[in-house]
Structure formats: C-alpha cells, structure tokens
C-alpha cells in the first residue's frame, strides 16, 4: 500500500538516511526509537509536511513524494496540540467534510464521533477536553477525512495509563476496521500491544523491520537489544481458568500462570529476568510458576549473571554471582526456575 523507498532528508538537527520500508493494507506498523532519532520527521515527510531531498514515497502505486499535502490522502495525528483551538469538537470533525463540500455533514460527524466514543462531546471546545478525549477527536477528524491511512506521532505519550489502555483498544478497533496505521513511539509496550510489524529506528535510519516476536527475540543490533531490554518474550495463547483469578498462557505445551486482565486469545508474554529465581529443588511459596529445566548458557551481564534455562522454551534468569556460586550452577545442570504469576506481563 505504502512504499518508502530510500528517502533521505535533513531538517535542522534531524536527519533521515536512506529509509526503506513497506506497509501493506491493514498493517499496524510501529516505528520504535528513542527521542530525537527523527521519527516525527519521518511521519511528516510521508504526510508531505516536510520535503524529502531524495528517494520516493509511493502510495497505492502512485508516486506522492512531489504531491501537495492536500493531495496525499494521508491523515496525521500528533501527541497533542493538533485540534483547531477556535473550533468546537463538532466543527473540528466536520472540517474535512466542509473542505470536500460533502452533504449530510451532521450525520457523518456523528458516525465518526460514535466510532471514537466522543459523541457526547461535540459542543465542547478542545481546551476543555481530557488528553484521551482530545486524541479521540483527532482520530474522529481523521476518520471523517475519509483517509484510510493514519500516521500517529506518539499519540499515547501524554495520557494517563487508563486513557492509554482505552485508546489502545480504539486504535486496534480502527485498525481491524481497515485503517492502515503507522505509529511512532519510544515505548516498547505500545509497540508490543499494537503492532503487527515493528521498525526500529536508530540515528535517522530504520535498522530492523520485522514482527514483534522476531524483533524482541532476535534483536539485530546491540542497540536494539539494549534499547528494548527485553529478554523473555514469548508468543502463545492465553486462556482464563475456572475458579481462579489466574490465566493460563500456553506455549509449546508449557503452561504458565499469569495474573492479568488481558483477554483470551493470542498474546505475548514478557517476564523480566530479575523476576525469575533459580533453585536446586522446587520452591514452596507465593510463586505460582515452577519449572524444571537444563541450563544452556551462563553469561556475565552488566550487573550479575544471566542464566539461560531450557524448560521447553528458553527463559533467562538474572542472578548474582554469589547465588551462582552457592547453587553451584553450570551449563548442563538441571535446576528449577520459579516466578510469580504477577510478574508475567501479558500483551494482546
């Protein structure tokens, strides 16, 4: 649907160098990178707000690199300050409809507002909206524009966690309804919970594009590994358990208990290495997860030692050198790993 072919540009202190990626219809593509790597500049160059100096942008087979902004049919939503402050919510959403001199504007505004859950806020002015409502209006306005490709620039960054979760649900819904989304963020949790494809951006370049699983399990560069800082990242199925507040995450026949409010179905599991303890015999205590496995690797980490244990899938535990010595750990030894259900973070 959208092909970004070798684009480069320099604007102020930011620079994009030979950016390449492809987004297919219905994709949720998240570009992940630390602040200041040029993520916003990349979105603005796709929308036409900033001119590229070389390369091409092709949308639905049509070269749009030299097209005017208003002919690109791409919507952009920023973190904040992108609603027209002198217009009401209704007028903001109706803006693109008036631009195209459409009929039944009231009806169409209402449809977009209902889709984004702000139908009761139409008479308000932007400065009276909460962060979450503000973003919903911006999304409703993009929907009203009729564009089916949205560029989102850190849309969740300024929201509290409740609004963040609600907006994630909305973004997933819009994506399921056919909106192709390119979303830039510095937050890997956002990327994991939303993307079907992730691009890692580093110093003005996209260094790795792949599925979330591939990106987190096999980071291509040291930068990606460090930036993401994720070790135990698994894809599996989540299922609620009867008569328990726990849910069961299954992967290759292994069942891991998780304390989560995530819905059933395909999900990602994330456990921080420092949440996993190692023992020579099964532990009793509040931890719900105990697995016997064989040590496949022992490596020195920045602080402590990372011990990889194969329990049917590989999990990494971060322990102290002191603990390693007292447990007499070595490659090939059989040990137990233990972790709490509440330390299992689930994203779906």
């Amino acid at each position, binding site marked *: 649907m959208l092909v970004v072919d070798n684009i480069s540009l320099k604007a102020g202190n930011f620079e994009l160098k030979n950016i390449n990626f492809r987004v297919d219809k219905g994709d949720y593509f998240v570009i992940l990178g630390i602040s200041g790597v040029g993520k916003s500049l990349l979105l603005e160059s796709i*929308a*036409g*707000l900033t001119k590229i100096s070389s390369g091409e942008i092709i949308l639905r087979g049509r070269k749009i690199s030299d097209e*005017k*902004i*208003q002919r*690109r049919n*791409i*919507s*952009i939503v*920023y973190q904040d*300050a*992108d609603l*027209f*402050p*002198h217009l009401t919510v209704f007028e903001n959403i109706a*803006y*693109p409809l008036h*631009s*195209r001199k459409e009929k039944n504007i009231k009806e169409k505004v209402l449809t977009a507002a209902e889709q984004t859950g702000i139908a009761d806020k139409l008479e308000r002015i932007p400065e009276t909206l909460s962060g979450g409502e503000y973003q919903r209006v911006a999304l409703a*306005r993009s929907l009203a*524009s009729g*564009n089916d490709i949205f560029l989102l620039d850190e849309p969740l960054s300024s929201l509290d966690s409740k609004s963040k979760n609600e907006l994630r649900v909305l973004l997933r819904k819009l994506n399921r309804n056919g909106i192709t989304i390119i979303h830039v963020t510095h937050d890997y949790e956002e990327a994991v919970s939303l993307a079907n494809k992730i691009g890692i951006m580093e110093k003005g370049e996209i260094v790795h594009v792949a599925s979330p699983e591939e990106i987190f399990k096999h980071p291509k560069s040291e930068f990606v590994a460090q930036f993401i800082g994720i070790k135990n990242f698994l894809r599996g199925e989540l299922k609620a358990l009867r008569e328990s507040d726990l849910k069961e995450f299954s992967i290759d026949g292994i069942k891991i208990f998780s304390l989560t409010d995530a819905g059933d179905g395909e999900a990602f599991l994330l456990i921080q290495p420092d949440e996993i303890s190692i023992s020579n015999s099964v532990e009793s205590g509040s931890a719900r997860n105990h697995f016997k496995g064989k040590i496949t690797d022992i490596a020195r980490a920045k602080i402590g030692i990372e011990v990889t244990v194969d329990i049917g899938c590989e999990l990494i535990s971060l322990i102290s050198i002191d603990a390693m010595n007292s447990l007499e750990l070595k490659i090939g030894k059989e040990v137990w790993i233990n972790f709490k259900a509440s330390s299992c973070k689930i994203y779906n």
Partner: protein
Amino acid sequence: MKRYFQNKSLLNLVFTFLGGVLLLFIIAPLAGMYLNTSFNSVHNAVGSEEVQASVWLSLWTSMAGTILFSFFAIPLAYLLARKNFPFKSLVNGIVDIPIIIPHSAAGIAVLGIITRDSFLGRAGELFGIKFVGNPAGIILAMAFVSIPFLINAARDGFAAVPERLEKIALTLDASPTRVFFTISLPLAWRSILSGFILMWARGMSEFGAVIIIAYNPKTAPVLIFERFTSYGLKYSVPVAVVFVTVCLIIFVTLRLIKKKN
C-alpha cells in the same frame, strides 16, 4: 534571605516610583487640559458644526484608510510571517519607514505621488477622484503614516499561529485559501484587531502629513492647530478636549470589547 527580600522590595519601590513618574507625565498634561477648561466652552465646542465636522472627518477618513489598506496589509503580513524570500529583511525595514521619518516629510512624499502631474493623480482624475485638499488625500496621508502598526501586529499574529495547524488543515483536504480563512486568519484575529485599532487611532490623530495634503477640509488635529495659531490657547483647548474625549471613549470601548472576546 531577609536581606534579599528587603532588596527586592526596595527595587520594587524604586521601579514603582519611576513608573509612577512616567504615568504622571502622560496623565498630567491631559488632566490639566481637562481641569483648566470650563464646561461652557466644551459645551460650545461640542455644539459647533465646524468641530463636529472635523471630528467626524478624522474618524471616518482614518477608518476608511484602515479598512482599505487592510486588504493589502494583511496579505503582506501573512507573507512576512510565513514565507522566506529574498530581501525579506529589506521589506520588513521598508514597512517601518513611515514610523521613523518626520510626518511632514511623509506628507510631502505622499503629495508627490498624488498631484495632478503624477500617475496616481491622473488615474484618480479619470474616475473623478481628487486627492489634494480632499478626503481621499487625507485617507492616503493617514494610511501612509499608520500602516506599519497594522502590518507589524498582523505579522506577529500570523507568526504566533502554529504552522503545524495550517499543515494539518491541508491534510484534511482544505485548499490553501480555505486554510487561510478558516485557520490562520481566525487564530491571528486578536493581533490583527489590535493592529486595526492602533492604525485607526494613529491615523485619526495624524497632523503633520495631513496638513500638507489637505488644510481643508479640516480634520480635528488641523482644526486644533488652526484655532491655536489664529485665536490662541483658550480657543484651541475646548476642541482638543472634545477630540481627546471622543478618542478615549472609542479606544476604551474597543479595548473592553477585545478583552471580553
């Protein structure tokens, strides 16, 4: 810490005193003028047809100039705020020229382009418009000296509108013209209105340039000057009081309306 606050309050005291002296400098002459004028003389001035006509002429010619020239000033202000082009600094400098040159010289300069021998003078005559000794000329003289106030205020207003909003409007299928009229202009409106008021005020109180273009019909500042030179202070002050009062009423009202909005 105590000493710091003492120093700070001393500084405040000094600044308050200096600011007060300045305010007194502005208020005292005006207050003196009001206090030294009898009610009867003001009443007579208000009733005088000549005074009424001069005040009205000042008000409408300045307003006409402001409205007419805003059609040129606002687009120029937008370009200066938004676009980069060769010699932009020079253009900004040209805009400020009327502020820095003596207004009598400004009047002579304007006179040069509106006499019968000039292109504008000849063009005006074709349509039956005379400039010299005519309200049309007064409008030009007032606009010449006051236009920088509108351009500068509008330019600052447009510059304060986030460019991002204009670009977002373009992504929402709006044409550049629609973006200008629905986003840029409404968001810069407060500044433009300030510039509008300043230009109108500056124009109506103009004396130097106007007297060179048109001694007659007399605007209020010209009438005040004429009464002063022909009959002395006693006869000019009531007219001045009337004109200053009208100006103050208008500007206080406009400021209140602007503040309310």
